[in-house]
């Protein structure tokens, strides 16, 4: 665990040493620039889960014996921790654990389709949404006949807000990312939620990329729903988090059916359980919740301001280095203004295909993502089939950026 001191500077060497992969992987100098796909895990997270299995494991909720109570407590504590993490008013009731962010979107698109969304209703998305926030709505369009409207983006990868009133008027739902996983853009989500509420829309925020970098406050934003995923905030795979306002969750029908989510079952019908369990069918991700709690604790043990200062400096250094080194050969996607972006840089280098770039970089143990980043509508809009994306976390340092630049030099030499 990192120091809980009041130091404002991030001790990056210390942070890096908290993550076993940088000393234990078979790649001697691993330059991990793919944290937007998934973060690495600090020792405390890995150990918390081992320790859970070694001392406390039992199935939760229905067990009368102490071990089951301990496991239930550990699981429900993780819920409360997750609720506090986003500043939920009722941490123990407003947090639903899913298997990942994607399931959370499916839960909403399905559950809201029963009483809230009707054929012909409009759902507003943006052109920079991850597939997790596109495909569930496309499925609903197919199944129920809702309309999808996509907010457009400008040259800088920022949302065009000019026709926002027209988009929102007569729509039912706005579902929006807080950070684009391709462009790094952080849209004015608070403003948009406010606007949407003026027009009576429900709002969903996708915090998958935002959560690892900046403090979330659902009360301040007044979001109706907010979603993030465990494996991107130092937690394990296999767990996602859906925050929803208590009264909304209460009014919504369940999504998956099975054990845990019911109060009673007869052969001709069933009664759902209370929130949040109503939305958690079957044995939940217990050890994963324990790991997620440790991940959140790790993140909170660092100072958000220190993280932000460090990461902004890294981003700036990366963008400057890329531009200095490759000049007009490189196109950096997303906002020019560094204040408007977070966590990552996507670029196109000459006509070299991102797969080739990533492949060559790998030779130097530089891990970047090449592809459509699960954002095909955006790719189409940018008129590229793929980009190369370097994303950062608090464990990255300046030498990681240098390694990226050195690798890219080899790339450009290799492909003419």
């Amino acid at each position, binding site marked *: 665990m990192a120091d809980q001191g009041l130091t404002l500077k991030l001790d990056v060497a210390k942070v890096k040493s908290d993550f076993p992969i940088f000393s234990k992987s078979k790649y001697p100098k691993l330059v991990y620039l793919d944290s937007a796909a998934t973060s690495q895990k600090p020792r405390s997270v890995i150990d918390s889960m081992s320790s859970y299995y070694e001392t406390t494991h039992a199935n939760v909720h*229905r067990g009368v014996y102490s071990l089951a*109570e301990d496991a239930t407590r550990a699981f429900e504590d993780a819920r*409360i921790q997750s609720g506090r993490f986003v500043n939920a008013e009722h941490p123990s009731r407003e947090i639903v654990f899913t298997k990942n962010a994607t399931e959370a979107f499916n839960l909403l698109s399905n559950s809201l389709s029963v009483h809230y969304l009707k054929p012909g209703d409009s759902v507003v998305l943006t052109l920079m949404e991850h597939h997790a926030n596109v495909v569930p709505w496309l499925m609903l369009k197919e199944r129920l006949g809702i309309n999808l409207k996509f907010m457009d983006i400008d040259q800088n990868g920022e949302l065009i807000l000019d026709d926002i009133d027209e988009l929102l008027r007569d729509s039912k739902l706005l579902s929006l990312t807080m950070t684009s996983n391709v462009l790094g853009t952080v849209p004015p989500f608070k403003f948009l939620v406010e606007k949407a509420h003026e027009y009576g829309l429900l709002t969903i925020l996708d915090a998958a990329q935002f959560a690892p970098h900046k403090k979330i406050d659902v009360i301040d934003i007044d979001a109706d729903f907010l979603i993030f995923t465990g494996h991107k905030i130092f937690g394990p795979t296999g767990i996602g988090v859906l925050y929803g306002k208590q009264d909304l969750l209460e009014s919504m029908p369940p999504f998956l059916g099975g054990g845990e989510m019911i109060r009673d079952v007869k052969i001709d019908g069933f009664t759902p359980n209370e929130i949040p369990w109503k939305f958690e069918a079957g044995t939940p991700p217990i050890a994963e919740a324990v790991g997620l709690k440790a991940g959140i604790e790790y993140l909170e043990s660092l100072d958000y301001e220190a993280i932000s200062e460090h990461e902004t400096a890294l981003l700036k250094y990366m963008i400057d280095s890329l531009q200095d080194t490759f000049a007009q050969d490189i196109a950096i996607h997303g906002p020019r203004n560094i204040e408007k972006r977070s966590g990552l840089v996507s670029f196109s280098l000459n006509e070299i295909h991102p797969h080739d770039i990533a492949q060559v970089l790998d030779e130097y143990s530089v891990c970047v993502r090449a592809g459509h980043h699960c954002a095909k509508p955006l790719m189409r809009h940018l008129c590229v089939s793929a980009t190369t994306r370097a994303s950062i976390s608090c464990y990255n340092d300046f030498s990681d950026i240098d390694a990226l630049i050195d690798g890219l030099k080899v790339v450009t030499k290799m492909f003419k």
Partner: protein
Amino acid sequence: MTGLEDLYREIVLDHYRNPRNKGEINTPTAVRVEGFNPLCGDEIVVTLDLNPDGTLNIKIDGRGCSISQSSASLMSETIKGSQIKEARNKVTTFKNMMTIHENSLESSDDNETSFDIESLGELAALQGVVKFPVRIKCATLAWNTLLEGLDDLEKD
């Protein structure tokens, strides 16, 4: 065995074995409410009526675990002869006793709750339940059922 002895105090076991005020009131003015916890099958039937002096008459029926049944029996003893308002206060006091633990899980989330343990008399014997979170629902079932009954009574 301290924890367990705390849960299964002699008074509790006695009320389980020999439930007080057992049965149903059959007067035409009586209200009848059923409480059911489908998760463990605990069942409570509360019948209530008002005596001419405005105090409560109560009978209890049901089946389930020692905690749910003794809690119901203990409740009937406390409630019998109370005014409706007084009864409501007792429900609140009892439920506060039972939610301490839940709050400690979520400490900064809810407001502090407090209760006057003195006022509970024999009921204080159920205090041990708070150490056993899964059993809290058993202990409160009768009380939640009573609340519904009081509502009905006042509606009529």
